[in-house]
């Protein structure tokens, strides 16, 4: 009885949209932390050995691209949760 009532409340409260917003925030947080760590390692390495800056820059861009790809998977799922009726 109570469970039916709770189920109805949950279904009608459009919780999908609310949690999609939280999911997008978590995805942005994850992307920021990941790319921040990559940037930190690259800065320290360039500071130690400035002549390898070119190589390190390309590797940083590739690694940042992969991390952003993972975060954007989550963003697309959140977008689908909001848009699909």
């Amino acid at each position, binding site marked *: 009885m109570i469970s039916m009532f709770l189920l109805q409340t949950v279904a009608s409260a459009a919780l999908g949209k609310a949690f999609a917003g939280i999911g997008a925030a978590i995805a942005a947080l994850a992307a920021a932390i990941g790319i921040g760590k990559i940037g930190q390692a690259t800065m320290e390495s360039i500071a130690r050995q400035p002549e390898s800056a070119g190589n390190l820059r*390309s590797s940083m*861009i*590739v690694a940042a*691209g*992969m991390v*952003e*790809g993972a975060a*954007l*998977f989550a*963003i*697309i799922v959140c977008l689908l949760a909001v848009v699909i009726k």
Partner: protein
Amino acid sequence: MKRLLLILLAFLVGFLPSSAQPQEGEASADIDIPSVIFSHIGDSYEWHITDIGEKSIAIHLPVILYSKTSGWHIFSSKKMEEGQYGDFVFNEDGKIVEMVDGAQVRPFDISITKNVFSLMLSSLLILIIFLLCARWYKHHDVLSESPTGIAALMEPLVMMVHNMAKENIGEDYRRYSPYLCTAFFFILFNNFIGIIPFFPGGANLTGNIAITMVLALCTFFTVNLTGTKHYYKEMLNPDVPVFLKPIMPVIEVFSALMKPVSLTIRLFANMLAGHIMILSMVCIIFVMAKMGPAIFGPMSVVSVLFGLFLDLLECLVAFIQAYVFTMLSSIYIGIAREKG
């Protein structure tokens, strides 16, 4: 002191309700932000350029359909302006369906939509630019003079892709360099054309998952159809202890299938997110218009500046995404061409 009071009074005047609010009896013209954004990033049967007053100026592109019951239909999308033409209506996703015995049936649809037309325009642009570059190289000796004109603009980029292919693929990189250059410049040009806000730009082609999926599938087929025996042996029969032999092939095949999926989603989501952010920034102006000049003025300045910043960020992201796609494709091809 008096001057301070005058300034404060002038500032408070800005908080009076704006005279742009609807009068009694008029319909409230609230801007529908989601539909504005989705109409800019989605595909459509016509290319809407602008609205002059009440009249909308659009290029009506041809609709080409083949239905199993009534054969080929080719007509301008202007005929669908009322929402119906003959047996054809729009379904709720905005696609054309045919009413067959009361049920909605989607015919075989190869219309020239906004994305298809933009694809044709950008391909024409790429062809013109690179055929002109090739003409320079045909008429001049590379070893004695450096390029001028459009060849000088394209040469560093082409050499960048070429060197990327050489260091990732190895000796037979020349076979794959044309594909990598095509992928790089296709993505780069279409990303840049998507950022331009007016016709003939602004069609959001690489933010369309079908386009990026086809690009990723091209990489997938290039990698897997030209893989060496060593590559397949490493994938399906690796040199591991016996208790790992059943699961390693599963993991390897799964990762080989996930690579094109990740290429697709990375490019699609980056471009789509960028466009949505820029459009949202500009829509802020229209939302703030009703809230009085004190908020409207500063927020418009903030919105324009932020929109400009996001546009420049989009240019950077456009280049980075083309570079990352090509770099990852060359790495995958390099792994597939390893010879024991």
